[in-house]
Every structure is written in C-alpha cells, then in structure tokens.
C-alpha cells in the first residue's frame, strides 16, 4: 500500500492503495466516480475510457501509478454543466440505449473532436473503433459527433 495523490477532475485526491491497482478501481471503488464503467477489464471494449493528460486511456489496464502527477478527467467533469457540445448533441439525438458504453464513447469522441474539429466518417471510424456498444447505437453516435462538430463550429464551447 502506498499513499498516492491524484489529480482527478481538477481536485487533488489522496488514496492509500497498491500502486498496481487499476486506475478504474480507484476511480469507481475508492473515489465513488461511478460514471466510468467496467466492461471487459482487458482493453477490449472502451467502457472504462477516461482522459489522462488529454488521451483516451483505458483505465481498466492502466495502473494507478501511471496516473500520478497527470491530469485525470472522468465523464463527471467532461464539462461543468453537462454542456460539452458532444453531451448536448447526445441528448438531442437520444444516442444512448442502455447507456453502459456511453461515458466511454463520449470520452473517446471528445479526443476526436479536439484533434479533428471537423471529422469525416473515416476519422470517426478511426477514433471510435475501440469503443464497443452492445446495443448498436453506432449510427446515432456517428450522427451526434457530426452534430457536435457543427455546434462547436457555431461557437458552443467544449
């Protein structure tokens, strides 16, 4: 066990953990941030995606020690008031079905929009192929990403 200080959603959080513990367990079980989901535990589904220094890391295979000193952002803080263009577009197009995969989808989509503000369908495929949706909401995810890109261009701030 070790005392580690993490920066999660802009706040310093101290945890007493085995440094090999997956970041996902720390977020969900110790810090109560249950918006990030556990799907497969082996980097196959994307449900556990969070941002670590802006990259869409799979927190189920990321040791908490890797995240020390880095900026960790979870779905709870993708935006201040659930008003990231992606969240607005998601709500408008009713993207989620069961919802289980959606926080991971949003975190990956946010990296995509940051790097490609006007993504093509191919860019969307390239960015989102690691996030599986067992409900098959892919067409709505694609439409919502295009919509969010448009909103962003019209001035809605991420």
């Amino acid at each position, binding site marked *: 066990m070790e005392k580690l200080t993490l920066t999660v959603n802009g706040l310093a959080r101290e945890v007493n953990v085995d440094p090999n513990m997956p970041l996902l367990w720390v977020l969900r079980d110790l810090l109560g941030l249950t918006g990030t989901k556990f799907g497969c535990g082996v*980097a196959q589904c994307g449900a556990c995606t969070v941002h670590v220094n802006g990259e869409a890391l799979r927190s189920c295979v990321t040791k908490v020690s890797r995240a020390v000193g880095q900026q960790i952002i979870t779905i709870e803080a993708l935006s201040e008031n659930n008003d990231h263009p992606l969240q607005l577009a998601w709500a408008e197009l009713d993207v989620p079905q069961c919802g289980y995969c959606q926080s991971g989808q949003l975190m*990956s989509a946010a990296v995509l929009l940051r790097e490609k503000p006007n993504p093509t369908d191919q860019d969307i495929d*390239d960015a989102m*192929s690691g996030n599986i949706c067992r409900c098959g909401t892919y067409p709505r995810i694609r439409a919502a990403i295009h919509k969010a890109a448009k909103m962003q261009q019209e001035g809605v701030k991420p």
Partner: protein
Amino acid sequence: MKKPIILGLMLLSSVVMALSFNVSKKETKTEPLMVVKDSIASVAAFKQVYAVLMSPRCMNCHPAGNVPLQGDDSHLHTMLPKRGVEGKGVLAMKCSNCHQAENTPGLHTPPGNPNWHLPPDNMKMVFQGRSANQLAKQLVNPKQNGNKGMKELIAHADDGLVLAGWNPGEGRSLPPISHAEFKKAWLKWLQTGAFAPAK
C-alpha cells in the same frame, strides 16, 4: 633470498597480465565492425534471422498495411487501430492508451513496452509479405531501414522493442530461436557481408 624476489616478480607480472587481459577484454566489448565477406555463411545466418523476423512477434508490428497484426495467426489487430504519422496510433486510438509500459497480466491482455509503436508512416519497414531476398536488401538500405548504418544495425539487436519479442505476454508464442541465438545470427549475417539469399 633470491627466491622470494623471483616469486614476487612472477606474482607482479601475473597481476599485470591479468590487468592487461581485463583491458583488452574491455576493448573487444565495443562490437567489432570488421566485415569479412563470406556469402555462404552470410546467407546461412540470414536464414535464421529471417525466421525470427517473420515470426508473429516481429512481423505483427511490421505490417504491410496501416493496421498492426495480432496473435500467432497474424490477423488484423481487433478494433483496427491505425499507424498514424509517428506510428503511435491516432485520435482516441493511440497505442499507449491500452499498451502500458509493461505487459498487462493475464491471458491475451495487451503486451507492453514504454516505447510501444509501429514504424512511422514515412518509413514503414514492412516485413509482412517480404521474401528473404527482399527483406535482406531492405534491412541494409538506409532509405528503407530508418537511416541505419552498420553500427546502428548492430545495436538494433538489443533494442528494447526487439527484446520485447521474447517477452510477449501470456498466450503468445516466442520467436523460433532465443534472443542470444538471434543476435549471434544477426551479427554473423552483417559481419559476413549481409548477403541476400537468392529468393
């Protein structure tokens, strides 16, 4: 009275000899660059090298396309992650989003390395589909091997990612020979003139 002096001199000279052996040992440690051409030995050594480079542990990250390969059957990596400009993936699919600095424990979980990547887009260094003849020529062509000269090629045998091939994580086969045997064959091939097999 003379005996101890002679003994002392003998001891001293053996110490000097031992020291000089040490020195010469150190000197030979810098890898010899001398090439003695021998096409038969060279082609024989490359046969072993080729078997390693075409094994899934090496070839899977030297694909013909822009998607890495996976598994002992070298299928396209599930999720189809892309090479990207630097070989480190793209957008929300960067290699190190899943591949950690070390192997993740468990069967078929992501293998890891601090420097996990594919060759970059402008220097793809493709192994997949190359004949022994083609690959041998490609490996010593600086325009196709990442601007490596003899020294860099020799050093490459101990590159961290090359070594990772022999620490592939649970559920993956090893290259056909040990790293020590590979390195020996690699050096032999280079030092005998890096001849390409006929086919």
